[in-house]
């Protein structure tokens, strides 16, 4: 029997209005899950609950067999999280920031220094390792965040729009890293708007819309619901089929 590493039962969350409604997830070890949905669908909220950042929610959730409510700390130790906004303390250098993160995870300083140096090199940031991040581009920041989220070698990786701002080469590199991590038994929970990447790397794709799970399956399974690329399936299922007429309307206004 395959081990389930993420499970939720009727996971719900309400702010002023409900943002998640009875989400039931079952993720197996070593899977790459593509978690997609329109803006405001509840993707980031799901990830923040599973990573222990949002503590109060309804329903049940467990990660690596641990209760998200009770064993938050142990879960945080064993997972990696890369947030949506490339927010870091940019008056620090990448090396200093990674040392700080390493200390929060109680890693050995020498281990952090070695890993930081080598990982920055992989992302072609060696020349900037000791430069303050104030003038870094979005892509450079994103690379530092990716390293920060993985430096402690987590078992499950939660990625919220991890490719934003990255150049084409870096996107291919990250894609390759995720595939190799999966081969090494890591689980990846991946939220993105980039449909082609999700289509290519995901074992299973979950589509969430207005806080509800509307599809869950392999790309082939989803294809049976609506034929075409993932982009087509997505628009079909999330009810946004009027793109063509909206674009026409836009052009019409421009030209008159």
């Amino acid at each position, binding site marked *: 029997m395959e081990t389930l590493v993420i499970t939720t039962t009727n996971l719900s969350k309400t702010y002023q209005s409900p943002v998640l409604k009875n989400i039931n997830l079952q993720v197996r070890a070593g899977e790459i899950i593509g978690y997609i949905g329109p803006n405001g669908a509840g993707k980031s909220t799901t990830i923040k609950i599973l*990573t*222990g*950042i949002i503590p109060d929610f309804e329903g049940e959730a467990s990660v690596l067999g641990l209760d998200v409510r009770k064993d938050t*700390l*142990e879960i*945080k*130790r064993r997972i990696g*999280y890369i*947030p949506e*906004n490339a*927010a*870091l*303390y*940019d*008056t*620090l*250098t990448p*090396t*200093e920031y990674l*040392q*700080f*993160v*390493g*200390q*929060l*995870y*109680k*890693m050995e*300083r020498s281990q952090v*220094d070695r890993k930081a140096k080598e990982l920055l090199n992989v992302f072609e940031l060696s*020349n*900037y390792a*000791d*430069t*303050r991040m*104030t*003038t870094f*581009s979005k892509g450079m920041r994103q690379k530092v965040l990716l390293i*920060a989220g993985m430096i402690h070698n987590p078992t499950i990786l939660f990625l919220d729009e991890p490719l934003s701002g990255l150049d084409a080469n870096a996107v291919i590199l990250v894609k390759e890293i995720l595939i190799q991590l999966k081969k090494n038994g890591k689980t990846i929970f991946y939220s993105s708007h980039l449909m082609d990447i999700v289509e290519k790397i995901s074992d299973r794709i979950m589509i969430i819309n207005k806080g509800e799970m509307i599809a869950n399956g392999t790309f082939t399974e989803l294809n049976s619901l609506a034929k075409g690329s993932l982009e087509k399936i997505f628009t079909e299922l999330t009810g946004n089929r009027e793109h063509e007429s909206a674009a026409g309307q836009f052009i019409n206004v421009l030209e008159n």
Partner: protein
Amino acid sequence: MNVLLTITDLFRWLYLRLGVDYEQLRAIVGVKLMMDNRRQVIGYTKNKKEPTNVFVWTLFFYALFGVFIALAIATVPSFMLGMVIFFSYIMAMISMTLITDFSSVLLDTSDNTIILPKPIDGRTLFAARTTHIILYLGQLAIGSAVFPAIVVFWQHGVILFLFFLLALLLAVVTAVILTNGFYLLLMQFASEEKLKNIINYFQIFMAILIMGGYQILPRIMERLDLDNFVFEIQWWNFLLPPIWMAGAMEAVHENLFDINHIVLTSIAVSFPVLGSIVVNNYLSPVFNRKLGAMGSSAEPQSKEKIEKGSFPDRLGSWFTTSPVERGAFDMIYKILGRDRKIKLKIYPAFGYILIFGFIFMLKGKEDISTTLHHLPETHFHILLIYLSFMVLQVTLFEIPYSDDFKASWIYFSAPLESPGEILSGTVKAIFVKLFIPAYLVISMVILYIWKVGAVADLVFGIPNNFLMLTLLASLSRRHLPLSMAPSLRGQAGNFVRTVLTLIATGLLGLVHYALSLKPVLMLIAFPLEIGLIYFVLKSYKKTTWKNITL
């Protein structure tokens, strides 16, 4: 309708003659003025509601300051000195405003991406920038000069009044040229980062100067014999622009046309005229070119590498007891020395130490040398020992706020059982980074004046200041460092809590004073003090997530 734009409309013909697209210029200036109104002035938070009559209010505030200058002109018997005070004030205000308030406008590279890609020619953009700055400074100059001009008109008649207005215009232009020249010079030799750092230190210096001037100048004025003051022109006066203007005014007022006054008048008139030509023809294109290059280079900046095992690297291990505490210590220690906005809030407090030191010294009726002579007989050094606590207090209040507050997600995603060690690491970093260096300087001053007799007090002062800091941190609301938006500043205040904290820390200072009367008691109190710190810090480290105010 914006009054300033209406004024600009009056010069529409001039712009059109200069080949400027007036409609575009008006749109750019209109948006920039709107942004000025929304820009937060340091230490002053605007309401969320759009201010309606900012123009009138701005004029009112400047006019209010102008009243003091007008009083000086009216009461100081020496006409020349009155004029020197006025022109120094106007020119310093304009240069300061250009540097402190307008640096962001002058060095704003967003025009490169927002306006330059649109079909706007360089001349219109340059004219829009210049108009914007002139309108802003015009408000300042007119507001500040209203009352002094009335005094000049009242005391000296219409002719001198007209010359006064002309000199005011020349002074404004001179200040703008000199400040632009200063910027250009900096830009030639300094990188973008260094330029921003220099401006930052300048802003800090200005904050101290304003506070210092406000507190110390009236006290010095009291001690000067103004009635018998005669202004004698020295060679170095020719280097000071306010004296050019004052000299020209005196030449007209007293009909003095000796060589000194002729030279001063000639410089006063020729410098702004020739300067304008140089700025327009030579400096502005260089300035715009340099500005265009700003923000576009991806060249690595200077490196910040701290060698392993070096002194700054070891500091963290000496003062902290766990990796998490050390992580917070290292991070805060570095950011306190780097983040310009935080420095702008905190570093002026160092200047206040000096200012308050002087104020306490000038309090007596004797002259400064007599006061200094009698200092060793006083217990004034105890006060000096606790003046640096001001820096700690300001820092503790400021440390939760940062423009990078969103980066605090890391505290919540990291496996931290409690945030206590982050807080204690922060407090220790503040103490080591800011207090210790200031204390070393103060200690040297104290040892020089009070000699070895003050050593016991200096030693006891260190743990006592730290105890005050930890108590202040424990009693205040607990926030994670650099985790809150600066706009939330001031909303977390609690008056009763603040007063109680001040009383508690003040008591500790009094305890020191009492102990200093019998120094042997200090020896007994010292281990007690260390024990107290241990317990306060231990309880502070136990801060739970529930204790944190978000």
